[in-house]
């Protein structure tokens, strides 16, 4: 198998033009799908026979929590790709992704606290999933802090890749150690193998919201990467041409 296609991604310029057409449509369609999913979930889906209307926060909570974990997986893989193949775009991706993942973890924590207050009667319980999400949030903040403290771009890129990779190796261990430590939270809403325990009228809007979140985040990341590429390559002639032709975005 030829790896030539992979090396194309190493060129920020090539990546900029390749992703140019994708970012905005993805962002807009993600936003639309998300709004559809949220309105469907918040206004039309049936309420839970036990938890009543408070269950509707699931349409925000579950997608954010899934995204928080997926973003970290992507960060770790990008860290590996950046370290092994020395692809510049991977570092740009980590730069763009880390704050988004942190925001997702934060949304999951806040909505989880609000939901917990109505369902369990407490804003916070020391349950495995809550705790591991908090640790995940702190891991994101660590990556962001490291990137912001290191002045030299090449060093900051490599350091962020290293810590993302270590986080990827350790995340399952952290997660399972916390699970053994304490478990109160309900099981995962979606698994690949089982049918969901909720009726279709509830999980369908949830699925739509999840897809909307994913597409939105992909669009957002591409967008952030493009601005980062323009900034990093600001001394090159193609960026100067680009900016003089289209103006500043």
């Amino acid at each position: 198998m030829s790896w030539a296609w992979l090396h194309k991604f190493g060129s920020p310029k090539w990546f900029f033009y390749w992703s140019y057409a994708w970012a905005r449509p993805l962002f807009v369609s993600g936003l639309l799908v998300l709004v559809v999913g949220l309105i469907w979930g918040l206004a039309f889906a049936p309420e839970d026979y036990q938890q009543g209307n408070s269950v509707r926060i699931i349409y925000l909570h579950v997608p954010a929590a899934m995204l928080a974990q997926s973003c970290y997986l992507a960060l770790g893989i990008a860290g590996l790709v950046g370290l092994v193949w020395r692809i510049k775009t991977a570092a740009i991706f980590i730069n763009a992704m880390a704050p988004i993942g942190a925001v997702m973890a934060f949304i999951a924590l806040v909505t989880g606290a609000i939901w917990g207050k109505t369902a369990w009667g407490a804003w916070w319980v020391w349950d495995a999933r809550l705790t591991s999400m908090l640790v995940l949030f702190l891991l994101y903040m660590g990556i962001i802090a490291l990137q912001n403290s290191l002045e030299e771009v090449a060093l900051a890129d490599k350091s962020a890749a290293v810590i993302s990779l270590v986080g990827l190796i350790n995340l399952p261990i952290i997660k399972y150690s916390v699970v053994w430590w304490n478990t109160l939270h309900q099981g995962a809403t979606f698994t690949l193998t089982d049918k969901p325990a909720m009726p279709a009228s509830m999980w369908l809007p949830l699925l739509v919201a999840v897809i909307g979140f994913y597409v939105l985040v992909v669009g957002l990341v591409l967008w952030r990467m493009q601005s980062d590429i323009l900034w990093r390559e600001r001394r090159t002639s193609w960026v100067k041409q680009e900016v003089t032709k289209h103006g500043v975005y």
Partner: protein
Amino acid sequence: MTYTSFMRAQYAVLWRSKQDVLNALLFFVIVVTLFPLGIDPSPAFLTPAAGGIVWCATVLALLMAIEGVFKEDYRDGSMEQWVVSGLSLSLLVLIKVMLQWGAVVLPLLVMTPLLGQMLFLPNDDLGVLMLTLLLGTPSIFLMGALGAALTVSLKQGAMLVMLLILPFYVPVIIFATSGLQAAQAGLPYSGFLAMLLAMSLLSLVVSPFLSAIAIKASVN
């Protein structure tokens, strides 16, 4: 430079900066003292909490000790010599961290029975606590060294190392304190010790290798 000369030099450096090691140990004692003062000095609270208190204090003290482990080498240029020496940088990092581990953890282990008495830890459980410290602290040191390597070029990196590395200590603290709680409840605890050893071995695989990458990027 050879591995033995490197080891001898690092040993001499450690011996001449013994105040740093002493500071870490004193910090450990002070953190342990804060818990009875701040929460409850009665044996009813302290006996079940002793393992957690000792472990939290250990983690903080060791992180303080390891956080600046490469700073001096970076500043005086000896780190560049490591990179150009042709020796394996990962191995050099490992030697340095292990020497540091011996210098800090062995005295800490000697002090643990005393602190166990102060925290009303039953004598039967003391051995388990010391075993968890012996098996878990290599992971604490190795991961801390990775944080130190990542932030070596920063003037003030202590807080950043804490933020970066403390999340990775969650499993170690959980396995160590769960093991001690199991021992106190009369349950088998060997599984927790095995997990601690596994964590240390995993850190042994990951940390020197990635620390070397971080050091190389910092020196350039």
